[in-house]
């Protein structure tokens, strides 16, 4: 299997930069990505004539923000319940304010899932921001169709999940929709596309489909662009973020780590680079780690757009901080959308107390024994932070197999879940009581009680989920 040879007449390649890899990512990184895009795009050609009836040109490059993880949307749905104008990315303003004017001036489109549970409210926020910055109102499209939490979808979900659904208090239900409505919105003239739940790589595939005019069943090209999107979607993770390990994997300038920019050609092949003047690096190692991140069968990376195939992919350095990805294939897309249903899951109670100095680990282990005796109604997870914690298991097998090593600085953490808040609350009270009733020298108690969200996944037929977009012209 080989990639197609570059044709003699090729459409200009497409630049897509990514300025967020999750909700809560750094908000001071987009400026360098946009600066780099502008430098590589060159000046805007002066408008020839000003025919008001001419269709608006497609953006020349794109900036994407990926801000939705598995549970982010359920949390956003809870915020929307409390406030009908909330439920989109809380950092939206901080992310866009530094770059919105330059993106609009230089023809850089913006595509993001920062609409979360309330894309329309996000669009209204962007329009307010544009007014505040004295910018002409951007053409914003809002993607629709992913939200299946309305009562009308209940039968569909019950058919797929079963009768267990009847006992659940649903918080959110969203289909991972794909690139087609993003591409359609861009072709209709959108400068900004605000999505809720779309598959992360679709934020890249949509712009590429619109830019190159690809058909929705051009599997090889969609497969390649999907993996370009996959490399972009976690932001700094392909640029030396989440990579450093001193002495083994040293990364320069990690405090200013750059964010990625993909150059995608008309066949969907990509070269990954990063924003100029930033730290980190892009090399074979960073690209391979990100390429396999959250992949299961490499021959079948499922998205709503395509089944991407990296079983025979390869990477090669083609310049400083530039790595080319080759050998990616694509196969016909799945017939169903993946749907995540989040529901209320009772309460998570956590409590911590620290022991230090001689026999600290022994005292922490004794405190854990006391808590187990005192809290028979709760199934306790026990961590001895500093000795054995996050690599261990909820059932305590690793802890039981790990003898007291005499660690002198240990933070005991216990955690339990319960559907009844009153029962869950007893954990915090018993941890606090260790001050006077537990082993010697315990200090620094912290306790928390948080509502839990659980998730069920299912597949629904594509035709049961109508998707589309709506242009939002002006703030109401």
């Amino acid at each position: 299997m080989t990639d197609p040879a570059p044709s003699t007449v090729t459409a200009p390649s497409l630049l897509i930069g990514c300025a967020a890899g999750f909700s809560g990512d750094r908000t001071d990184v987009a400026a360098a990505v946009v600066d780099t895009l502008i430098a590589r795009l060159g000046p805007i050609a002066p408008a020839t004539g000003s025919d008001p009836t001419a269709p608006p040109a497609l953006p020349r490059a794109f900036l994407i923000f990926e801000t939705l993880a598995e549970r982010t949307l359920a949390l956003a749905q809870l915020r929307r319940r409390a406030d009908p104008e909330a439920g989109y990315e809380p950092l939206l303003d901080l992310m866009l304010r530094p770059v919105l004017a330059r993106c609009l001036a230089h023809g850089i489109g913006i595509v993001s899932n920062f609409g979360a549970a309330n894309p329309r409210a996000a669009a209204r926020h962007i329009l307010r921001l544009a007014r505040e910055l004295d910018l002409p109102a951007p053409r914003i499209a809002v993607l629709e169709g992913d939200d299946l939490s309305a009562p009308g979808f209940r039968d569909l979900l019950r058919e797929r999940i079963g009768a267990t659904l009847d006992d659940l208090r649903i918080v959110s239900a969203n289909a991972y929709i794909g690139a087609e409505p993003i591409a359609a919105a861009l072709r209709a003239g959108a400068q900004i596309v605000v999505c809720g739940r779309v598959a992360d790589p679709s934020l890249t595939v949509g712009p590429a489909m619109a830019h190159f005019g690809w058909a929705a069943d051009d599997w090889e090209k969609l497969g390649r662009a999907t993996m370009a999107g996959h490399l972009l979607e976690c932001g700094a993770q392909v640029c030396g973020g989440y990579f450093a390990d001193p002495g083994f994997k040293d990364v320069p300038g990690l405090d200013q780590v750059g964010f990625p920019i993909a150059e995608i050609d008309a066949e969907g092949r990509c070269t990954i680079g990063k924003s100029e003047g930033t730290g980190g690096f892009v090399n074979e190692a960073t690209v391979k780690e990100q390429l396999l991140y959250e992949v299961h069968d490499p021959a079948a990376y499922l998205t709503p757009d395509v089944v991407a195939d990296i079983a025979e992919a390869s990477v090669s350095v083609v310049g400083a901080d530039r790595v080319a990805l080759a050998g990616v294939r694509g196969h016909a897309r799945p017939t169903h959308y993946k749907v995540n249903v989040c529901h209320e899951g009772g309460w998570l109670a956590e409590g911590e107390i620290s022991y230090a100095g001689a026999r600290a680990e022994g005292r922490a282990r004794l405190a854990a024994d006391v808590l187990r005796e005192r809290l028979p109604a709760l199934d306790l997870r026990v961590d001895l932070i500093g000795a054995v914690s996050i690599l261990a298991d909820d059932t305590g097998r690793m802890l039981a197999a790990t003898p007291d090593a005499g660690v002198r600085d240990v933070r005991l953490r216990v955690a339990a879940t319960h559907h009844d808040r009153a029962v869950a609350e007893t954990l915090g009270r018993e941890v606090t009581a260790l001050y006077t009733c537990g082993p010697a020298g315990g200090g620094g108690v912290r306790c928390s009680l948080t509502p839990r969200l659980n998730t069920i996944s299912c597949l629904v037929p594509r035709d049961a989920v109508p998707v589309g977009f709506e242009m939002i012209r002006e703030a109401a």
Partner: protein
Amino acid sequence: MNTIDPDGVDIVVPLYRAAHGRTGDKGDRSNISVIAWHADLWPLLVEQITPEAVATQFRHRAPSRVQRFVMPTLQAMNFVLDAVLDGGVNDARNLDTHGKSLSFLLLDMPLRVPAALRHRLVGPDAG
């Protein structure tokens, strides 16, 4: 952890001196990449870091299934471990509900390396 075999031919080192990797999660399933630092080390990874060996390393997590996908063109393997996240990001009581730290458990596995390949290993000998 670096010990010389009696015959002086092989050394045993932690896997992280021969490979790097990252953990990802979806639901209650973890995937962990193991990527060779050098082409000369790649055959050792394929031979020794088997699904059975990984299942043993993760026995306290009681995986219901361990799959290994070998990608020679990337000199990388992808391990997919089912039911090792105590329910996944929304259910686990672990502080690290995603299991993001688990690549460091896998990369702690011992690897036998011919002494002639010692110069291909990364990090200090004492590492």
